[in-house]
């Protein structure tokens, strides 16, 4: 993992220039680890060589994007967060005739279905639209399919129960062989789209934006830019849910948000 920093910067700059994916403001240590892993599994020995290869081979570049854009997620991760969304946010959103939610950086979609289940249990799913976006096309396709390995369901069920789920979790999916497919009714109002937080603009106005464990991968400059993007994309008194270890501390929009749940990192636009 002994990368020359200038070589790494050059590589990320040319990726940005050629493909429009901007990783230059990502937290470096994690990007380095993932690039290193990508190179090891493909026996590429020098960063310079990797640069030449991905700039000339679009298919290899797609694989590179899979590796560098992190896709690890789970359903009802941090159950208390979902419990708080149910109790502190959805109760208030219920007063709107029409609810727009943005799940930014949805990865393979486990968070989307978690939120859809909450909305259904609160009787709000029919008048909600969830916009689910990610930089990673392959992850988005998995999210659209809504098919997950059956062996994850035990942990997800436990999470769901801790999040005070109202039903039996297995009512929401059908198992077939080693996979489960989530119920079509959950998908009826989800719009899937590619969106790149590092370069793309706001595209709608939302009552709730959820973006968990995405900002930790960005440096302060990019974190600040993305929080501004969220601020602009929220309606007045709209809500923002971040990951457990993320905060608005280093952003200049801090004062424009009110803390709704300090521990679970749920904020309201003032």
């Amino acid at each position, binding site marked *: *993992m002994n990368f020359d920093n200038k070589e790494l910067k050059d590589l990320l700059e040319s990726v940005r220039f050629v493909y429009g994916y901007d990783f230059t403001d990502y*937290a470096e240590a*994690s990007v380095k680890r*993932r690039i290193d892993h990508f190179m090891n599994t493909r026996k590429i020995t020098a960063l310079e060589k990797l640069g030449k290869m991905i700039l000339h081979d679009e298919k290899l570049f797609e694989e590179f994007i899979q590796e560098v854009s*992190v896709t690890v997620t789970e359903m009802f991760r941090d159950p208390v967060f979902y419990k708080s969304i149910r109790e502190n946010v959805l109760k208030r959103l219920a007063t709107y005739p029409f609810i727009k939610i943005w799940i930014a950086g949805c990865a393979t979609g486990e968070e989307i279905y978690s939120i859809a289940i909450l909305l259904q249990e609160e009787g709000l799913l029919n008048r909600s639209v969830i916009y689910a976006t990610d930089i990673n096309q392959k992850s988005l396709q998995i999210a659209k399919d809504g098919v997950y390995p059956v062996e994850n369901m035990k942990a997800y069920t436990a999470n769901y129960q801790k999040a005070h789920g109202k039903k039996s979790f297995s009512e929401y999916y059908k198992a077939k062989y080693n996979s489960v497919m989530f119920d079509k009714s959950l998908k009826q109002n989800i719009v899937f789209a590619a969106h790149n937080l590092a370069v793309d603009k706001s595209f709608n106005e939302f009552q709730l934006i959820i973006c968990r464990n995405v900002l*930790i991968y960005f440096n302060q400059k990019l974190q600040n830019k993305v929080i501004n993007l969220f601020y602009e994309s929220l309606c007045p008194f709209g809500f923002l849910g971040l990951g*457990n270890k993320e*905060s608005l501390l280093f952003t200049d929009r801090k004062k424009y948000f009110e803390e709704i749940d300090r521990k679970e990192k749920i904020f309201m636009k003032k």
Partner: protein
Amino acid sequence: MQGITQKYNAIAIGTSAGGLFALSGILDELPAGYPIPIMVVQHRSKDQKDLLEEVLQNKCKIRIKQADEKETIKGGFVYVAPPDYHLLVEADKTFSLSSDEAVRFSRPSIDVLFETAAIVYKDTLAGIILTGASSDGAAGITVIKEYGGLTIAQDPAEAQFPFMPESSIQTKAVQHIWTLSEIKKFLSEISNI
């Protein structure tokens, strides 16, 4: 332990099963103003929140703190990796966190902290592997050695769970195999260099 003249700018510690007892054994007498930042990965349940920090703080004078992302790494603190996140060291000596895959079934992973800390602190990093029942840390201790840092493992004969220090020792990257009291003495001596 005579002859240590190298100045250390950071200490990284990795441990798993039995770690709480071992950690308090080497950290309990460090003064509040201990000048070298200490970073710890202790394998822990993701539901545990900050219990580990509280228990450790009750036994120690030095400040025990769960590491925050973007936090600047300073002396006077023992930074502990939060449950369910990897802890990484950035080039500007701040922490970052990641939700990447578990490494050797662990998140936080000792390897991730050790590797990223080695790149930044190079020969001014001391890495210590304590008791544990996993091989996490063995790859990391090798990287610390490659970058010229000092590598220490708790004596497996004394460790409550010897598998983790043994796994590190097998890589041949460990320079010192010490008991907890020897490690404690080392920590105290390097603070005066």
